């Protein structure tokens, strides 16, 4: 179920996507489904698709994704790491037993040994990242604010559908709002307004803008009018 709060980054996709109601859409998700690393004996990260109805990634049913206004995509990221505290405990014990500090090679060997012993017993951390896909708008709302997670999602999306996601930043969002031709052209050359170095009561303005801007002198006159 969607949470009632969160952060959203907007993405647009370039190129074509399979029809969400066609089997090829679900097949693409299945091909990049999440695969468990629960019993893995090495430090690794697994990234893949699951659905809200089945967090294992074993099944993909359109009804689990269909939200009427869009489709619920869910990326699962599992990460298995050797707990640093355990590593410290075992190293202290080994150093106490040896009566000296461990060499670099001995530390590496100890870590390798611990990974083979402890990682199969260690549960991975699990993150479920939701996204709302609206084909009619060629848009995805990604419910993640961390740039690393956003990159993982864009990568998974590309490897699944062969379509690049474009961040809905101020430029890309502006370019997709259906502005008029004149404004779209002006978007390409617009530059920041430099607001006044004004003190209270002063009306001096300092404007530096595109070739179409009025001069600083004119702007100051306008502000003083």
């Amino acid at each position, binding site marked *: 179920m969607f949470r009632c709060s969160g952060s959203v980054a*907007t993405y647009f996709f370039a190129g074509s996507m399979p029809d969400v109601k066609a089997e090829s859409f679900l097949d693409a998700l299945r091909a990049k489904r999440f695969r468990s690393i629960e019993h893995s004996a090495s430090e690794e990260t697994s990234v893949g698709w699951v659905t809200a109805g089945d967090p294992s990634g074993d099944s993909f049913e359109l009804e689990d994704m269909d939200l009427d206004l869009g489709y619920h995509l869910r990326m699962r990221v599992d990460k298995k790491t050797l707990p640093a505290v355990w590593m410290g405990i075992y190293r202290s014990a080994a150093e106490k037993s040896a009566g000296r500090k461990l060499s670099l090679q001995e530390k590496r060997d100890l870590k390798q040994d611990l990974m083979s012993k402890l990682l199969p017993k260690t549960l991975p951390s699990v993150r479920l990242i939701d996204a709302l896909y609206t084909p009619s708008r060629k848009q995805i709302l990604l419910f993640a604010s961390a740039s690393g997670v956003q990159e993982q999602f864009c990568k998974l999306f590309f490897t699944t559908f062969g379509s690049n996601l474009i*961040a809905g*930043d101020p430029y890309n969002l502006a*370019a997709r*709002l259906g502005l008029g031709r004149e404004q779209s052209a002006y978007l*390409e050359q617009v530059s920041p307004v430099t*607001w006044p170095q004004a*003190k209270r009561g002063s009306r001096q303005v300092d404007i530096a803008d595109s070739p*179409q801007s*009025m001069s600083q002198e004119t702007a100051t006159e306008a502000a003083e009018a």
Partner: protein
Amino acid sequence: MSDHSADYGFLGEEFLTWLWYRMESRGGEFELPGGRMIAVSMDDYLCFAPRDDDDTEHSLRRGIPSRSPEASAALHNGRRLRKAKLIVAESSIEWSLIVDGSSMTLGSIKLPSDSEDLENPEERSRERAGNFLLIQEIIGQLYKIYLEKRLRPEYLGKEVEGQAQWMSTH
């Protein structure tokens, strides 16, 4: 399409600063396409962008930061709003969110309360998804209203004049 979108963060920051000016000069009601009326107000968080690489970012939290002397000083110094916490309402439903102008991402969104007549988690999920889409669309429409003014040569006349005066006398 150009590949310099990373350089356009200023446009989102100018949008937030204009939104604030618009709310204080003409009220926080906006008419969106289709005759939809929405109301916007500033909440308890503002963050001002640094003027250059050596400058610091200023954040103001709690109370009414838009009425604080620090906010006035930032405006006098020509700082743009980088982030602002807004309350957005359409008829009886209300969202709270932080808009980051430099990326146009929406953070810390709090959706309207779930309708009481929803019977199961699937229905709640649908309604929440709809409300996320709605707030994203509303912010997009407000941005469009701004851009329709901003991306015209005459913007640098009357519009700038009014906002410059507001910033210097806030």
